[in-house]
């Protein structure tokens, strides 16, 4: 196992999320949420890998479904699992009215991410489902917003780390001879 700092967890997961196809802004959100998972769960690496590997099969809530949530109407599941990141982003951007809570959302993919994304908000997942691939969840009001924990680390096994690094590597640009020459501008050998 390799012990990462939480900043390394956040940076790695943001890059891997971007590499998996999430937008830059969502990738930032995912990095922060990964940090929260790592604080409490040794399986943060696997949670991130599942998210990266399944990114393309998760779907965003459609506007009609989102409108039903806001009105407090019963949810109707879609064929494909609901993207926990896109769902959480919507709930964070436009918090549900108190009258709509608690709210059951059906067929959420990787609900651990919905829980982590909402961790610093006034909402929470009522009974977190751990690393389930897909689950129905209940969003409820959270009375007190948690303070971030300190003194924690993010342990990860080498294989999962390598897999996440390969997602992150999709955001890197290979060097050309020309860019290699230009580099960061620093001198090759310092003889002064």
């Amino acid at each position, binding site marked *: 196992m390799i012990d990462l700092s939480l*900043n390394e967890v956040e940076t790695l997961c943001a890059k891997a999320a971007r590499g998996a196809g999430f937008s830059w802004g969502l990738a930032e959100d995912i990095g922060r949420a990964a940090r929260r998972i790592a604080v409490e769960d040794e399986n943060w690496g696997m949670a991130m890998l599942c998210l990266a590997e399944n990114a393309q099969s998760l779907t965003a809530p459609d*506007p009609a479904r989102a409108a039903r949530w806001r009105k407090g109407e019963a949810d109707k599941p879609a064929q494909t699992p609901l993207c926990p990141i*896109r769902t959480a982003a*919507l709930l964070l*951007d436009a918090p549900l009215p108190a009258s709509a809570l608690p709210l059951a959302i059906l067929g959420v993919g990787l609900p651990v991410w919905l829980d982590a994304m909402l961790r610093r908000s006034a909402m929470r997942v009522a009974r977190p489902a751990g690393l389930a691939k897909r689950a129905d969840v209940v969003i409820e009001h959270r009375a007190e917003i948690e303070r971030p924990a300190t003194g924690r680390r993010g342990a990860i096994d080498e294989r999962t780390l390598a897999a996440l690094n390969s997602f992150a590597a999709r955001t890197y640009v*290979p060097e050309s001879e020309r860019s290699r020459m230009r580099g960061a*501008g620093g001198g090759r050998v*310092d003889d*002064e």
Partner: protein
Amino acid sequence: MTAIALRPPEVVMCLERLGAAHPTRLSFLRQLIRRATREKWRVRKHLFDLNDNGFGRAVYAVETSARTYSLVAFSTPLDDEKRSDRVIAQAWDTSYVLYDGLPDAAEIARLEANAPLQEAGRYTRSELVLARANKSVRLFEDVASALARGQQPDEEQLLGVGYLLRTTAVYGNGKFGIADRDEIAARPELAGSFQAEMLTVWLIRSFTLDLVDHIARCRNPAGAVRLAPQLRRALGVGNATGLGMAPFLVRHPLLTHNWFLARETALARVRAEPEAGEAERKIFEQALADLAQRVARWHSDDDRQAAATRSLAADLDRLAENLDRLLAKPQPWDALYRFAEEHFSLEGQEACVSLMLEPHGALVDELGDIMKADETPGHAIDGGMDCASLRQALLDCYSWARAIDFAQPAANARFWYVSAEKLEPRLGERFEEDGAELEQPLATARDALSLAAALAQEPAPASVADFLLRRPEWRHAVRRAQIVAKFPYAEIHDNLIGAELRPVDILRAKLAFFGARSFDPRSDRWLRIALFSGEPLIEDVATMAGEAA
């Protein structure tokens, strides 16, 4: 007292002015020195186990009010051809760890196996900062030789360079497994921006001075002399900084805002003072004389910096000639600033800002406390805002960008990317190199204008949350726009992908906040600087009278 408005962001945040920034008494190393002096921090050499050639290990323990921190230093042989300023180099003359507490023998052995490897090593939460430095080869040898002969080195040569070793990287905040910033953020002595990093560099400075003394004494135990106290105090630690640091100010908009807000608030307070007291005038005159002396020694082969330094020297002469007249006016410091604004180069104007703050510690030092930020609040998006309001906020905040035509190749000439080989930020040529599809989100002005155009296609009352549900690709730009609308110094008011961009301007602005001097651009994308030159030695602060710095 007539209040003075803060200089607006369109003046403060343009790259040309950022590239003329000077350190002030609010700079991070000055904040650290003030606290250490006030709290009488004590430093002792816990271990100094170097051979006759200066290779081995040393531990410097610093006792603050609440805790002990230790600089663990390793000095190793290095072939000359491996000595490089580049952050991606693989070997160094010296490597360092700032350790949380006092390491025992087992911990020192663990660090000795890892610290010289830097990125290739792994670290724990006991390590707060990781750094390495190379000797300034010729100067280091000249100084060691002179001291071994029983002579002091040539002062002009020594101060012309200004340091014996130059750091090529100083890492904090969890890099390579070291402690997260969160772990020290609640400790008063390290809560401010980059205080752990500055403490590390301050201790490295003492180690470099002891290292050269040690080598000289080993060469000639009977006849060597120690480096003279005034030379020890004059020397700092060098640093080479390249593109890797440039995105920091863009990626930390709230922190950037707070740094500039503190400095601009300090300037406005000083300008609003109704008169200049005798004590303040004396301190100002001394600071002016010190700066003039530094400027005379400020060497750079960079044509633009050399010209700017010449202009600065002329500006300082003119300031000295007009000082009595200006300080006799009502609101004398405002008169002085206005005179600088009217007559001086940007380099001269920003030097004046620094000089004006110098005598006014009682008025401005508390502003140091706001120069930190938890970026979390800025992370939340106000999705309840309507698209028309967000578009208007963008047009207002980025009005300066509307003059840029991104359809022109020169305005869109570059792209920021992360190199697969070096894992470091790089700047590519969009129309000449591959990889632009992997561009990092640092094209702030272009993205802001493009977002405004996308919002124009939306129904005016549509919510930002609904817009982002359909267009998640704009999430980073929406987040930034809402931050910039609230925090005016959060954004650099220039095109960061234009053909004319000089990344060293961004680097200089950040380094000036650290407290760097002697800016020496070596190209448009990297520069050398000195830290702590002319400042007290850390081992002296416990016995210094009053509040220094």
